[in-house]
C-alpha cells in the first residue's frame, strides 16, 4: 500500500506536484494518468525516496521508503529515465542490485527469463534497444519479488507483444495481491489495465476513482435514433423535455436511456430504424478532463498563423 498525504514538490518557482493525497491499494492495478509534465514521474521519484517532498509525505507499507531495511524486497520500481551504466552487462547490473539487498543470485536468472532477456544477459546494456532497456528495468523492479510495484510508463518503447505482456504482468501482479501503480499518458491503455485511476494535471489531483466510476462520470453518452419520420420523432422527444440534436436523419438524444426512448416512440406509433447508446471514447473523456491542465500542447499551424496576425 502506498499512501500520499499533501504531497508537494516545487522546483524553484515551478510547482511540479501540488498537494496530492491518494492511496494505492493492494490487489488492484492503479493507473496514474496525466498529460506531459503533470508530475507523475516526480511523484514516483518521491515514493522511492529519490526526491525529497517540499511538503507532505508519502509512505510505503506504513513507513517511508528510506527506512526500509531491504527496500528492493519491499518496493520494485521502474523509473522514467534509464538508470543503467552502458558498459555493464545486464547480468552484472542485476548482480550488484541483488547483492545490495541480500537477494539470492538464483533470482537473477529467474527475472532475466521472465522478461525475455536471458539470451542477451551477458551483453553490455549500452547496445540494448529502448525496449530491451525497458525490459531490463522491469526485471530490476521484480528482482526482490516486492509486494509493491511502481512502473513509470512501462510500455514506453515496447512492441505490441511487449505492451500486451506488460498489461498481463500488471494484472497478474495485482492478482497476487500486490500493490501496483502504473503511469501512462494513454487512457486507452489504462482502460485495459487499471481497476482504479488517479488522474493529475499540472501537479493537481483531477480524479481519484474506480475505472467504472470514471467512465460513468466523464464519458459523455447519447442515444442515436434513426427513424423514417425523424421530424415527428424529434418533435415528440422535444415535447418530453429531452435534448435532441439533429444531424440529417440522425437524432442524438440525451436525457433518457435507450429503453425509455424506444418505449416512448413505440407508444406514439412511430417506427425506429436504429436505437444505439453511443459513448464518447475514454480518450475523449480524458482529454476533456485534462484540457485545462495541458501545459505543453502542440498548436495547429492555422492557429499559430492567427496568433501572429
Amino acid at each position, binding site marked *: 500500500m502506498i499512501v500520499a498525504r499533501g504531497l508537494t514538490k516545487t522546483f524553484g518557482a515551478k510547482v511540479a506536484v501540488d498537494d496530492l493525497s491518494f492511496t494505492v491499494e493492494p490487489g488492484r492495478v492503479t493507473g496514474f494518468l496525466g498529460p506531459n509534465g503533470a508530475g507523475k514521474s516526480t511523484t514516483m521519484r518521491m515514493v522511492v525516496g*529519490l526526491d525529497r517532498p517540499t511538503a507532505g509525505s508519502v509512505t510505503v507499507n506504513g513507513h517511508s521508503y528510506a527506512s526500509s531495511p531491504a527496500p528492493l524486497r519491499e518496493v520494485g520500481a521502474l523509473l522514467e529515465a534509464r538508470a543503467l551504466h552502458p558498459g555493464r552487462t545486464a547480468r552484472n547490473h542485476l548482480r550488484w542490485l541483488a547483492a545490495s539487498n541480500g537477494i539470492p543470485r538464483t533470482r537473477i536468472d529467474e527475472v532475466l527469463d521472465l522478461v525475455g532477456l536471458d539470451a542477451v544477459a551477458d551483453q553490455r546494456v549500452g547496445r540494448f534497444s529502448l525496449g530491451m532497456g525497458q525490459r531490463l528495468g522491469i526485471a530490476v523492479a521484480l528482482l526482490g519479488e516486492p509486494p509493491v510495484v511502481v512502473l513509470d510508463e512501462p510500455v514506453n518503447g515496447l512492441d505490441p507483444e511487449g505492451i500486451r505482456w506488460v498489461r498481463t504482468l500488471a494484472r497478474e501482479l495485482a492478482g497476487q495481491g500486490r500493490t501496483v501503480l502504473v503511469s501512462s499518458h494513454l487512457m486507452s491503455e489504462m482502460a485495459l489495465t487499471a481497476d482504479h485511476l488517479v488522474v493529475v494535471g499540472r501537479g493537481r489531483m483531477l480524479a481519484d476513482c474506480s475505472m467504472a466510476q470514471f467512465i460513468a462520470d466523464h464519458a459523455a453518452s447519447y442515444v442515436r435514433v434513426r427513424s423514417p419520420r425523424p421530424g415527428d420523432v424529434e418533435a415528440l422527444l422535444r415535447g418530453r423535455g429531452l435534448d435532441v440534436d439533429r444531424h440529417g436523419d440522425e437524432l442524438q438524444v440525451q436525457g433518457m436511456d435507450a429503453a425509455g426512448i424506444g418505449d416512448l416512440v413505440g407508444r406514439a406509433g412511430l417506427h425506429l430504424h436504429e436505437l444505439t447508446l453511443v459513448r464518447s471514447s475514454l480518450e475523449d473523456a480524458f482529454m476533456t478532463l485534462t484540457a485545462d491542465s495541458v501545459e505543453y500542447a502542440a498548436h495547429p499551424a492555422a492557429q499559430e498563423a492567427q496568433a501572429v496576425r
Partner: protein
Amino acid sequence: MIDTVALDPDRHVPGVRRHPRAADTLHAEWLKFWSVRSTGWSTAMLFVLGAGLTTLVCATSAAWLASGEADESPASFITWGLFFAQITALALGTLIVTSEYGTGMIRATLSATPRRGAVLAAKAVVLTGTLFVAGVVTAFAGYLGGNWFLDREGIGIALTDDGVLRSMLGSGLYLAGLGLFAMAIGLLVRHTAAALSIGLALVFVVGNMAFLLPGTWGEWVAKLLPGNAGSGVATPVPFNPELLAPWTGFAVFTAEVAALLLTGWLVFRHRDA
C-alpha cells in the same frame, strides 16, 4: 477477497539473516566497481605508468647519478613514476561518483540503498582499498625494476634505507587519499569532465604554480596545497626541498581530504537524485 502478499522483507532469505548489512552494500559497490571496463584499464595504467616510468627513468639516469655531476639523490627517483599514477587515481576517484550521475545509475544505487552515508562509505572503502593495494604494489614493482639499474652502477638502494619502505607504503596511502579527494570533487560537481579537470588542475597546475608565489606567505600556500602536502610521504627524498616533512604533510593532506569529503557528503545527503 484477495490475500495480500506478505510484507516480510526476509521471505526470500532462507533463515540466514535479517537485513542486508553494510557488508552487502560494500559487496554491491565492489561488484559495480569491477564490472565496468574503465576500472580494469585504469588500474592497469596506474601500474604500467607507475612502475614502468620509474624503471625507465632509473635506467636512463643511473649512469649520471653514479657520476660526480649528479645534484639529486638516487632515492628521489625510486618512486618517480608515481607522478603519473596520480592521474589514474584522480580518474578512478572521480568516475566512481560522476559515472553514476552521468548515466542515471545513481537512482538505481539510491533506491537499492537509501542510506546515503552507507553508499558513500562503501564507495570510499572500495576505492581506497583498491588504490592502496595498487599503489603499494606499483611502488614495489618500480623499486625492483629501477633498483636493478641503480645496482649495476653501484648506487643501489636497500629497502632498509631511510624512508624507502615508508615511501612504498606512502605511495599506496597517497593514491588512496587522492582518490577520495577526487571522489569528493565528483560529489560536488557531478560532471566527469568538470570534476576531473578541477582535480587535475589543483594537483598538477595550481600545485606547481603556487611555488612561484612571493614571500613566506606564498611558500606556505604552496606547501599546504593537497598535492604538495600529500605527495611527500611517497618519496624517500623529495626533489623539492621546500615540502613539509612526510608525515606532517600527509596529516595536512588527510585533513584537507576529510574536509572536502564532509562538504561533499553534506551536499549529497539531501540532494534530489
